[in-house]
């Protein structure tokens, strides 16, 4: 897999460096008129550069809510979120958009590719919003697609790609602006088990190159591919521990039967 990441990130060691993500006593309410949903009830968390964190928990435990906060798509009702030491609450809309564009890469369960838009154009989109020159946009989008193994499918539309391929396009899109954090909310939720492991292999490779990865999943065997696992229940962190006996996705793939493609 080709290297796409900044050299600085590759040398980051987890211990004494300042955390890339620091969350302090974050609450989130959804105001539904008569009732209030208390989706996050005091979350505290630090994530160091280069970590690979899996967030687990039952449906409705607040995982997606938390990811949306980390992804700067939403703001906490109370508490603080420091991204690379900066309190996100202090930032304006423009700066948040720019952070989403350059610092963060987001991968969704439902892929969220633009329909009737080629893989290459989908991947190019964030570079357009980063206002990169045309040649560099194309160059980067092509490299990102090659990196996820889709060099041959650049001109395909999402409807012409399998679920796993669509998710790779989404990953390429998340990586094209060379972010320092990759956020993925149930990226394998719509995929079969072999394809899920293939996606985890990509994540492990990226993480080995120094990229910080935060992954939401409700499948324990997917969470195993991370280095650290966190469990949410009722809007709070109930468990936070390193992953023991972490498998290498590449190894696992060799043992799995190849179905098609």
């Amino acid at each position, binding site marked *: 897999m080709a290297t796409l990441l900044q050299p600085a990130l590759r040398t980051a060691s987890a211990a004494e460096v300042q955390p890339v993500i620091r969350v302090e006593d974050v609450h989130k309410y959804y105001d539904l008129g008569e009732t209030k949903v208390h989706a996050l009830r005091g979350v505290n968390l630090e994530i160091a550069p280069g970590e690979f964190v899996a967030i687990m928990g039952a449906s409705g435990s607040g995982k997606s809510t938390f990811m*949306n906060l980390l*992804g700067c*798509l*939403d703001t906490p009702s109370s508490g603080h979120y420091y991204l690379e030491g900066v309190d996100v609450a202090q930032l304006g*809309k*423009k700066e948040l*958009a*720019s952070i*989403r*564009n*350059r610092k963060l890469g*987001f991968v*969704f369960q439902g892929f*969220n*590719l*633009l329909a*009737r838009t080629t893989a290459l154009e989908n991947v190019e*989109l*964030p570079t*357009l*919003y*980063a*206002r990169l020159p045309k040649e560099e946009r194309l160059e980067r989008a092509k490299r990102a697609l090659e990196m996820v193994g889709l060099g041959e499918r650049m001109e395909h539309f999402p409807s012409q790609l399998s679920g796993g391929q669509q998710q790779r396009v989404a990953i390429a*899109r*998340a990586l094209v*602006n060379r972010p320092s954090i990759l956020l993925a909310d149930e990226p394998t939720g719509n995929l079969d088990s072999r394809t899920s492991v293939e996606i985890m292999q990509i994540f492990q490779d990226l993480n080995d190159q120094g990229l910080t990865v935060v992954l939401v999943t409700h499948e324990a065997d997917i969470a195993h591919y991370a280095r650290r696992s966190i469990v949410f229940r009722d809007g709070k962190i109930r468990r936070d521990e390193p992953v023991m006996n972490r498998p290498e996705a590449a190894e696992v793939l060799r043992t799995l039967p190849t179905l098609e493609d």
Partner: protein
Amino acid sequence: MDFTSILRIALRALARNKMRSILTMLGIIIGVGAVIATVGVGQGAQQQVQNNIASMGTNLVFVSAGSVNRGGLRLGGGATKTLTYDDMKAIVQESPAVASAAPGSSASAQVVFDNNNWYTRVNGTEPQYFDIRSWPMASGTSFTGDDVRTAADVAVLGETVRQNLFGSADPAGQTIRIGNLPFQVVGVLAAKGQSGMGADQDDAIYVPITTLQKKITGQPWLQYIVVSAVSQQASYAAQEQITALLRDRHRIRPGQDDDFQVRNLADVAQLADQSSRIMTLLLASIASVSLIVGGIGIMNIMLVSVTERTREIGIRVAIGAQEADVLKQFLSEAVVMSVIGGAIGILVGAGSSLGISHLLHWPISISPLAVVAAAVFSTMVGIFFGYYPARKAAQLDPIEALRFE
């Protein structure tokens, strides 16, 4: 984002819903087309009116009997018995700005040849009338000064009358009846078409003034006098001299109203010009209402489109689109539609005004001002009606947008 990327994305989005985009543009096409066509046709009509008036001779001055208005009522030409043949002679002799003049009086009458009947206006005048109006004969000759002196029963036909009485037959030397009197046709006038006011000038018969007065109306006074000034500039002087002369001859005291009316053809032209200009303006403003309706159509479709593409907007915002990027994207779709619609509308409007002018034999007139105004206006319609939907798109909450099914 750079301009070409924005344009490309907008065109692509519009191409995805071709039928809808075309129908939406149709509103603008019709609006702009209607503005261009009405202004074009209106100006053509205006030009035509001016040409007609010019063809009557621009140094003409009309004197008609009867005051302009008396107690708010305008009296018809025949209502006053004060304008006389001697007035005409005095005008020619005593007004230095006047070159020549011809007397006139008229009556409506049934005209018969063979089995053909035609109801028309019979005018009595003198031969110089046709010179003053610069109105040549198509065939035959005018009646003569002798005919006037002897009150001869001779007639000159207008083209419309000739057509209706004779069809393809040769009228030269034939005898027609006006009322019960037989008249010999001596000439046919060249076709002159409509007057500045839209009346058919060819629907008339001309006979010697004396014949009309003695044998048809039995009235010795004149209804009008047609005067030609020595030059176009002199026509205003002629107008003043005639007014002074006639007031003196008719013994009208200062402060009293004239019992006649002197009109300069330049004034008539101006009046006609003004009224057709107002008409054009009125039509154009009605047409521009349809442009606004077209704009509302754009707004409507853009609102639908923003709702349909809520998820797309959510994705774009999630990967780092600024509010301004989304705003520009949707605004540019609206503006592209209105600009393309405006361009097509200009072509359609110009084409149809060419067609209409051609059909009516009017001068072709496509106003560059109207084209520029329509282009600017349609662009502004796009910006104005596209802004609200685009702002709505730009301000969508990304989380809500991403949850949208």
